[in-house]
């Protein structure tokens, strides 16, 4: 499952970033925006590849680094990498104040990827909440590019309110590409005539073939937990449920220790895990 990533990291210099210019900042929802980066070094621009689910460490000198998953299309990079960021911390808030033409540092890509090859031929359930859709969008793009390689594809996505839904302008394209896109919100407003309820509840609406289905999930930890329950309850085995986890990260190389959970360094052994690897301690509080 863990493809060893191509790593745009200078191995002889700890935490050395490559510089990249912000080509575009696109506001997405309240407090969330996408920034597009273009490496200054043409050689890196040329060689940089990532897999769906991987992340980069973005560095703003004076503020520090933040681990941000890559949200753009892995196949169609045009020399650019996209990140959808929730501007909530020191580093990300400072990034939110930047503008096109500014330069920031980037290390990566790091971590494991969604098992796009391994799940070929299967029905794919993508269950996601809030900003958790960002690391899954590259997987969605991959499926759209290779639609015939997968069975039924169902995207269940939810946000707190209709205004918090990420990438609403792409849902129609995804539907047209053969993905059943199901959107739900926790709290509706006057603009909303769609489904209301939390993401795991949407599992009741669909008949999933447990022999064929895989689940890919990312979102708030509580949502992930219940998505897994719903998957397991439908006899989808833990070996076919994949989760992407988040922890504090400083290095991205399994060295600084922060992101550990049990025997794993989430930055190196994850962030994407097959659920059976986590089963033993996933429900242990505060572990």
């Amino acid at each position: 499952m863990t493809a060893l990533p191509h790593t745009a990291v200078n191995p002889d210099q700890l935490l050395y970033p490559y510089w990249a210019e912000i080509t575009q900042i696109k506001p997405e929802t309240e407090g969330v925006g996408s920034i597009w980066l273009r490496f200054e070094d043409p050689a890196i621009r040329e060689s940089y590849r990532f897999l769906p689910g991987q992340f980069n460490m973005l560095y703003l000198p004076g503020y520090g680094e933040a681990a941000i998953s890559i949200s753009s299309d892995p196949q169609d990079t045009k020399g650019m990498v996209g990140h959808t960021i929730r501007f909530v911390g020191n580093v990300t808030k400072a990034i939110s104040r930047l503008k096109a033409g500014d330069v920031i540092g980037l290390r990566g890509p790091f971590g494991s990827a969604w098992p796009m090859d391994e799940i070929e031929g299967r029905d794919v359930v993508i269950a996601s909440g809030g900003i958790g859709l960002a690391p899954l969008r590259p997987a969605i793009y991959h499926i759209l590019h290779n639609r015939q390689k997968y069975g039924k594809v169902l995207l269940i996505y939810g946000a707190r309110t209709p205004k918090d839904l990420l990438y609403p302008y792409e849902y129609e394209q995804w539907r047209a590409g053969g993905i059943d896109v199901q959107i739900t919100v926790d709290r509706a407003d006057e603009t909303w005539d769609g489904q209301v309820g939390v993401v795991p509840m949407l599992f009741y609406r669909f008949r999933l073939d447990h022999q064929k289905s895989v689940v890919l999930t990312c979102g708030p930890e509580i949502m992930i937990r219940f998505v897994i329950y719903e998957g397991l309850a439908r006899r989808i085995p833990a070996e076919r449920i994949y989760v992407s986890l988040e922890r504090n990260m400083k290095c991205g190389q399994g060295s600084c220790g922060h992101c550990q959970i049990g025997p794993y360094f989430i930055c190196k052994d994850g962030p994407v895990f097959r659920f059976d690897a986590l089963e033993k301690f996933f429900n242990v509080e505060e572990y």
Partner: protein
Amino acid sequence: MLNNPTINSTISLPKTEFDTLLAALRELGYQTIGPRVRDESIIYTHIEKLSDLPQGYTSKQGPATFRLVKSNHRRYFDVIPGAQSWKQFLFPPRTHLFTVEKVERWDIQPNAEKPPRYAFIGVRGCELAAIEIQDRAFLRADFHDPVYRARREGLFILAVNCLHPAGTCFCASMGTGPKVQGGYDLCLTELEDTFLIEIGSELGRDVISRCQYEPASGFLQSAAAKGLERAAGDMGRHLSLDDLPSLLTDNLELEHWDEVGKRCLSCANCTQVCPTCFCWDATDHTDLLAHSTRRERVWDSCFNPQYSYVFGGNTRPTIKSRYRQWLTHKLGAWKEQYDTFGCTGCGRCITWCPVGIDLTEEIAALRKEAQA
């Protein structure tokens, strides 16, 4: 004097010749670092000559207790060290990585300082094992820490067999001492008038060949062996490893975790004195105009609340959860990560815990509850 000391042979170096050995190391370009008395404790710092070492001292150690004791003996290596370990030299508590300057654009200047070449004088079995454990964390097949590697590759190790363990020692349980298990350039056993020295490397052989040494008699060798045997039975603590790591990794929800969580202050002392703890953070130090940023790597600890902070909260908000993380890592998950325990039985975490939490007792208590 003999002409050709060979690797793996043992020679006898009169104590009067030890300064020659230190001088030889300096001639080869090493900074000689060893134990010294300071502030009623022992630190590791520069030493020039044998008389810099803590001759005639021992240390009395127990949970939350360290007392340096002046005794009648004349030996130099009898005192079990204090809070410091060799970790601070290979994995410095604060390292300047690079400076980023903004002129037209960001420009990186690496820290061009030449990494120091150290000769460690007096590395105990537990401490050498700790260095080898950190090697596994910092010198992986897929990731080499350049700061650590530069210091480690230039390192000379003069190890010391431990003849008088302290009250918090349990290296015999961990299989790391009191006899040094290898990985040294030279390994010394201190007898009354001489140092018995095993030569472990070509470099060690070279250094010894610059000194006036003598053959090691069978009498001296058997005296050293007897001393080591006695030391193995003199451990202040014992830890049974039979059911580790599963005792910890399978029992994350025992009540005893709450109990120890009430005593632990989450002060991070144990992780700072631990010779294997490797967690670090990266920090930026910026001038007022935000034109120049100095990026540093500093030690961190799983006991710091910020350590596991992500937006939305702290993954380990309680002291209990942090202590559990530390212990289940050290003697649990570490095994799966690095094929070794993260503990060498040096006892520092017991001695330097301000409330005297003793991991050997905590493991025993967890075991008792798990078996109940």
